[in-house]
């Protein structure tokens, strides 16, 4: 009888410790998850800012003026453009 009681006590202690550690691990994992989610939000914000920056650099008026003034580009003469249709390409 005493043996059984001791065994049960040992099992109880083991369970209790297991519960504490798993709770601890769950909280730790959860705080990791929170941190990653916060990072995801921050990255999303950064993505928005970069998108904004990209759009500002790629303003059509800006691209056009750089192409024309700095690089000396111009639209090709329509006579020198050939439009290829998929059927003709074969």
């Amino acid at each position: 009888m005493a043996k059984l009681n001791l065994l049960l006590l040992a099992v109880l202690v083991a369970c209790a410790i297991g519960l504490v550690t798993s709770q601890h691990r769950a909280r730790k994992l959860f705080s990791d998850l929170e941190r990653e989610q916060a990072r995801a939000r921050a990255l999303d914000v950064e993505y928005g800012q970069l998108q904004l920056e990209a759009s500002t650099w790629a303003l059509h008026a800006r691209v056009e003026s750089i192409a024309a003034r700095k690089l000396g580009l111009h639209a090709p003469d329509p006579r020198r453009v050939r439009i290829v249709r998929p059927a003709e390409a074969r």
Partner: protein
Amino acid sequence: MSKSGTQGLVRLPVWRARFVVTALVAAFAALGARSAYLQTVRTDFLQEKGEARYSRVLEVPATRGRILDRNGEALAVSTPVKSIWALPGDVEFGPGQKRRLGSLLGMEPKDIDKRLADRSRDFVYLKRQVSPEIADEVAALGLKGIHQQQEYRRYYPGGEVTAHVVGFTGVDDVGQEGVELAYQASLGGKPGSRRVIKDRLGRIVEDVESIRAGQDGTDLTLSIDGKIQSLAYGALKAAVEENRAKAGGLIVIDVRTGEILALANYPSFNPNNRARLTGAQLRNRVITDLFEPGSTLKPFTIALALESGKLTPNTAISTAPGSMTIAHYTIHDTHPAASLSLSQVIQKSSNVGAAKVALAMPSAAMWSMFQSVGFGEAPQLDFPGAAAGKLRPYKSWRPIEQATMAYGHGISVSLLQLARAYTVFARDGELVPLTLVKTGTEAAGEKVLSASSARAVRTMLELAVQPGGTGPRARIMGWRVAGKTGTAHKEENGAYAPDKYLASFAGFAPASAPRLVVAVVIDEPSAGQYYGGAVAAPVFAQVMQGALRLLGVPHDAPLVPIESPGAGDDAREST
């Protein structure tokens, strides 16, 4: 031994032992009662207090959805900023700190004092929407009573080019104009809140419950093509400035899908900096402003005549002597001719011809023609303030009104309605519903005209841009163009102003298989030229050519340079 043993024993009175037992039992009973009281009666209060030590309710902010053009380029993006606020009763700082804060926020120290004057208030904004970098510097000052709050600010990289379509939001990130207002519900999202458990370091360790599920705003992809939009805005701006006009509007529609590829207005504004904004800059003229379209409406009169079956494109209309009087009112032609075929009425833009054609038809038929192409009713478009236009019931028409309506006077439309109506000719008689949101699929049109009449009018509109017509400057190299000029006197105080005009052009290309409809209006050109063919047609040509090239539309005309007509070469019209 035994004696000494009994001697050592002190006989205590029995009551003492009883007293101790009773006291102990009473103490235990008191503890039990107290704990029962706490566990049952006071349990809610205590649990609440306990939870308050570690559980917190967090707001989950919703970010506003982005607005993108059809190629995925950003037109409006929200990004977090900070607002600096103060508790006036708590604020303590020396003059040096005040100056430092003022220089960071761009405020004079006396302005800060003014804000903080009422010390009984709990919450005063010092400055809203400052950049995160400046907010960090303010936080580094460590001033007492100065706090920060996270907010969002909307940025518009497209600036003035897309300002009228996209619109803008107010300081609270709620849409106030344009698409931002029209799609507020889906863009805005709903902030949520949740209850969490925090540890002593402030880290969230457990999610207890979600009180309200938050919902971020969804991104919106518009039908606008950034490149065509930019091209259209640039061309329109140049034309308005060159002609010293008051304003201008332009719209590009994809005939197949009904998508609006570009919608430009000038004057415009910078949505990122809206100080000193006037109503004239703010108005989306293309959608909200009405005008008497003038000759650009003639094709609809002619289409009705063809549809009735009584006239063919070659039917001769007597237009001698180039004027016509109905009830004290005389209609004039700029190029008087004795007789014109129905095609030539369009080509030469004859008012007398159009009026005669109109008077031969019942007013009810004419009214239902105008009505069926969308005049007089607000377009089904998700945009605030879309104008319906004015089309009076035919029962109240007098003959002179029916005659003037034939060439676009006494009826008012928006440029959007006019452009949409032209899809009838471009799509073999089908009127297409317009959309500002990218669909990418063929739109189902509503049949309002027979294909043969629509094609006949298309041929006439092609003639109108050939030399000898009113709009040869609308031609472009490589594609066949069809369209109609308009030059209308502006109405002022109930009469037509003799020297104020609206120059317009509406047309489509390639004429063999129309892909785009472009409509342009220039308000009060005052640099000498005022005819639609001279002021609006070149803008049309420039935008149409660029847009067709950008979309890779196959050529349907030989690639020979177009000789620009001399000043006196092209026919002109008076409406």
